[in-house]
């Protein structure tokens, strides 16, 4: 709220930052993506190895998780190419003391937590529907209301190397604009949001469908696009990992640039920015 202050302290004004449909689809997406990630790991755990190509090359996965015996005890092992990592307690072998078992991802990361592929699939496909319907709503509404064109599409000035570099430096220093500049997304935000909304999330659906033997008959070109069903499974996993990476970075930026202000703006739509004090209070907007 703008406080009548004497002098130089800037005033805070609330601006309308996020439309209702953006906020609603954001939170539904949070729910759907979280449960898809967890049930996806449950499904992955049924065969914790990934391959490239049409078929599985069982003795040569590019990544695999499992257990092994070392000095009389069982350890978790993750193999990536020719690299072997000991990942006991997290990947390959985990569980509470005395109840450890061989499993890809640990119980706390999977839905359900126990080994149950059938239920994992039910959760996954239910939230896949929610995710797709919600994503289409976001896309269509964002095209209609201009969210993509006005808020997300970078301008020429945005993508100027000098500007991009400046944004990288200020982000690295965790210095975020508070004034007029904060009314709009910066180029790194635009790039990240567009990459997630237009590339990574649709990639999950496309690679997911490519794993379907039924859908393969309807759209065999997807197999050619991704290089086979096992490649699609690998790309599904890599895209999901990139989404997890985005979520972690996104959460870190939310906290670093003012957790409360950001969270409020995604709930009520109102975002506080600082403007130079005006002589006449209340004339800011």
């Amino acid at each position: 709220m703008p406080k009548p202050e004497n002098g130089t302290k800037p005033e805070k004004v609330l601006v309308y930052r996020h439309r209702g449909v953006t906020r609603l689809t954001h939170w539904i997406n949070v729910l759907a993506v979280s449960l898809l990630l967890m049930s996806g790991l449950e499904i992955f755990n049924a065969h914790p190895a990934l391959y490239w190509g049409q078929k599985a090359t069982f003795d040569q996965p590019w990544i695999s998780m499992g257990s092994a015996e070392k000095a009389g005890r069982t350890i978790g092992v993750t193999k990536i190419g020719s690299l072997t990592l000991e990942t006991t307690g997290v990947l390959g072998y985990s569980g509470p003391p005395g109840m450890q078992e061989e499993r890809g991802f640990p119980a706390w990361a999977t839905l359900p937590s126990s080994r149950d592929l059938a239920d994992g699939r039910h959760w996954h496909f239910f939230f896949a529907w929610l995710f797709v319907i919600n994503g289409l709503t976001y896309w269509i509404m964002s095209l209609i209301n201009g969210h993509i064109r006005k808020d997300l599409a970078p301008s020429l000035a945005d993508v100027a190397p000098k500007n991009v570099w400046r944004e990288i430096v200020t982000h690295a220093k965790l210095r975020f604009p508070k004034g007029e500049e904060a009314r709009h997304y910066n180029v790194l935000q635009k790039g990240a949001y567009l990459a997630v909304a237009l590339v990574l999330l649709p990639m999950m659906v496309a690679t997911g469908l490519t794993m379907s033997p039924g859908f393969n008959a309807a759209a065999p070109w997807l197999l050619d696009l991704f290089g086979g069903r096992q490649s699609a499974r690998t790309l599904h996993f890599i895209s999901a990992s990139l989404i997890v990476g985005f979520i972690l970075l996104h959460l870190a930026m939310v906290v670093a640039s003012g957790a409360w202000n950001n969270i409020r703006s995604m709930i009520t739509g109102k975002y506080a920015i600082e403007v130079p004090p005006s002589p006449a209070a209340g004339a800011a907007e």
Partner: protein
Amino acid sequence: MSDTTNRRGWLKAAGASLGALALGACDKIGMDPKAVGFVSKAEGLTRRVQRLVIDRKALAREFTPADISPVFKPNGSISPSDADYRAHLLKGFADYRLVVDGLVERPLALSLEEVSALPSRTQITRHDCVEGWSAIGKWTGARLGPLLDKAGLKKNARYIVFHCGDTLEETLDGSGQYYESIDLIDAYHPQTILAYQLNDKTLPVANGAPLRLRVERQLGYKQAKYVMRLEAVEDFSHISRGNGGFWEDRGYEWYAGI
């Protein structure tokens, strides 16, 4: 300043406890039969949309001999211990008869020789296990459509049930016997065959000798092995636990196109 730090601290604590709560709640909900029952309701939607977007006659991708997996990984039963099956195996399936009955005009009992004389098809296709792996093999077998026409399906027949020679799980009520079922769309699909050869050789026991179903646009658990009897039915709710298949009785989807 201390106000913001406090608020941050409070937010952090709230976030952490919410996270823990969500994880705990997630786990509880994840196992709750009601919650699982609710999310399972999407299965009907998934099945219908697949039927809608996948042309009934659309073929599964066929591959080249160079794509064939060096070893076609067997899964499920790989050497049935059922007495009847062992007896057939000992005699080289000489007395084996594929029974076709249920809602048919002319019940059949065909020897392997008779099955091999039926219209056949050879196809190099990909087998997708529900676990996530795939294997490519070359299958030769009798096309199911002409076989069913030979028996003559009655008007009310809607599904073909495949009764198998293997017990995959020991149970008191016999519900551990493997079986599967498909509808007539898949039964009459040109690539749906009862395979007696894998990679140009007699079908090995591990892969389902003497006959295994290939219904190429669905997952591995639909590809019933050790097929003994085909039964045409109007519905399958009276068979075993009533869900149309061994794995379907254990929570998996009846239509396994994804």
